[in-house]
């Protein structure tokens, strides 16, 4: 092959993001008649998730997958997807992440400034809460409790709701729940299945308080150096991969909820009033977001609220 695309991925190849990359690889290699080779470096062999923006942006590697929130240092506005309960239905998520939408478009453009070009978005599902014995129906249930979070904005939300945010990595989650390091868990529901968290927590509250997105980026200089023909092949494969994972996501989540119930977990869906209570305490988080992100954030927030 004349051109090699190396892609760094934090998760194992067996994860749905890994499978999605395999689909991309097949498409690209088939349609380019082997002119373009795709090599996937899964399980953080080369880079951890948080190193991907710098690695791809600097051209140390051609492509990488990072959770969207990893760009918050460069583009604070990306945390629109972590704004509590802003995208709490699948319809809203789909509208927001559509290529070129008023929410996603400006973000893709801003990320361009970091030296990376966004090829496609990978759906990961909504954030849910885990607890023992009783669901977390309202902010009242979070008061004074230690809550696992995985980012600053989620931490701000927990604080606004009266809890104590604690950063715990994915790999320490299981033991942190088992041993009560934190009282309340927060994760994507597919994580419940892959890490068998039902051994240690017994209740899921389907809050969808945040929407977890991953993005696949390519180094911009490298991208500009490709022939138009190759660009078209890669873009087409990216679009196929994006649609495939988005369509699969609801099935993946449904399977995960089913597996959780089969393993003895109770799944609780908050009522409309309970969601309103959450949204009320989240007001300061929205305000902090606007303050931090300025005009861009305001524009995106307005667009998001219209969905």
């Amino acid at each position, binding site marked *: 092959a004349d051109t090699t695309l*190396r892609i760094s991925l934090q998760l194992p190849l067996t994860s749905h993001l890994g499978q999605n990359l395999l689909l991309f690889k097949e498409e690209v290699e088939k349609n380019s008649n082997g002119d373009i080779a795709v090599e996937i*470096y899964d*399980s*953080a*062999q*080369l*880079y*951890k998730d948080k*190193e991907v923006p*710098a*690695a791809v942006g*600097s*051209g*140390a*590697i051609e492509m990488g997958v990072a959770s969207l929130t990893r760009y918050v240092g460069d583009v604070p506005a990306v945390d629109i997807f972590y704004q509590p309960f802003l995208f709490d239905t699948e319809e809203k998520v789909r509208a927001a992440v559509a290529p070129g939408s008023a929410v996603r478009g400006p973000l893709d453009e801003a990320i361009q400034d970091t030296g990376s070009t966004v090829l496609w978005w990978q759906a990961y599902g909504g954030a849910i809460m885990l607890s023992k014995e009783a669901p977390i129906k309202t902010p009242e249930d979070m008061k004074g409790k230690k809550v696992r979070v995985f980012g600053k904005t989620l931490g701000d939300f927990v604080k606004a709701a009266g809890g104590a945010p604690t950063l715990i*990595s*994915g*790999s*320490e989650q*299981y*033991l*942190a729940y*088992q*041993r*009560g*390091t934190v009282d309340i868990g927060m994760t994507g529901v597919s994580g419940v299945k892959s890490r068998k968290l039902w051994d240690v927590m017994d209740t899921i509250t389907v809050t969808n308080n945040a929407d977890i997105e991953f993005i696949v980026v390519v180094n911009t200089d490298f991208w500009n150096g490709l022939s138009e023909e190759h660009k078209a092949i890669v873009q087409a494969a990216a679009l196929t991969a994006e649609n495939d994972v988005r369509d699969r996501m609801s099935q993946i989540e449904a399977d995960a909820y089913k597996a959780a119930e089969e393993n003895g977990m109770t799944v609780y869906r908050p009522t409309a009033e309970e969601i309103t209570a959450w949204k009320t305490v989240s007001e300061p988080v929205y305000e902090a977001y606007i303050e931090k992100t300025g005009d861009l954030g305001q524009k995106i927030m307005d667009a998001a609220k219209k969905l």
Partner: protein
Amino acid sequence: MTTVLILAALFSLLLIRVPVAFALGGLGLALLLFGGFSPLMAPQAILSTLDGFILLAVPLFLLMSNILLKGGVGKDLFAAVHAWVGHWPGGLAVATIISCGIFAAISGSSVATAATIGTVAIPEMIERGYQKRFVYGLLAAGGTLGILIPPSIPMIVYGFVTEQSVIALFLAGIGPGLLLLTLFIIFSMIYARWFGGFEAVPAADWETRFWASLRALPSVLLAVYVIRVIYIGAATPTEAAAIGLAGALVITLAMRRLTWLSFRQAIFDSMVTTVAILMIVAGAKVFGKAITLYRIPQDISMFISQNFDTPLTFILVVSVVLLIMGLVFEALSMVLIMTPVLLPAALILGFDPIWFGVYMVVMVECALITPPVGLNLYVIQSVAKSKLSEVARGVLPFLGLMLFSVAVLYFWPALALYIPFNF
């Protein structure tokens, strides 16, 4: 072929005495440049290593044990254990091993454990007529408990490179650690029966026992407390280490054992060891990225899983390879180089990643006591001012016991996995 060339280059660099950290990092960088990959990966890899929260536990555990050490804890421990079991058959040997086990719960390093207990136990045992060879072997091997019983620096590093839970690894080390401790004690008592000829120690009176225990008690309680904090999940290993450090300061200050001078020495020594260790981890990370881009781990992993397709043959082959590597490789770099190569194949064959970590640590323990390159041998040699060959010969029976415990671990994985996941 590439693999052989890379290994030859690495050996040449190590043999002309390029520090391990820079031999790994430099070769990795050269491979990146030579293969047309971005050299930016080298500084990125070094920074990302030092940016790992879990590795902060390394200086903190070192500070905790160094401060206790300067406060004379090694001596206190040995005296206390000695007062209780010294009069048993082979009592002094048993006391030595138990002291190693307890100190292992304070220290994350084998070298520190061997050196600390060795300094007090070796002269005493030789004076009582124990054979030198046995004494040296006992201490070199007993010291290795330091990395199996938590805390453990190699386990922190394994958890860091594989993104596995360090808490689970720590807890998984307890079972095998106690097994090894028991095997060493039984061996010492049998040895004492058959090859006696040394002076028996009279039983200590109750007053001696009381005072000796009282002096050792605070540090034992601190070790138990730190393990408990980790066990109940009240804090991450890094935070637990910070608590341990604070506890060590309180104990040594309250007992008026810590002078300004010894405090300064303790923090400086900890810093030196930390930097030496972390730079090796960083260098290995650069090297690891380079060989990953050359697809060497992937190919070896594939080769192993295709040719040794049952768990038993896999573990036998890997153990032989690690034993041979362990002759000449420094222990930490062995974990760093081999884990990314072996773990994927091990996972395919159905091994638990935590179990595999404990297994790697036991194999590293073997590497620490096999000549010509074995840090524990060097430590005992310099503490006892004896010949390397004498220490090396004394170690043989203990090496046998360690390999036996690997077999037990293989056929009964619950020995490691029961405590973290069911207890």
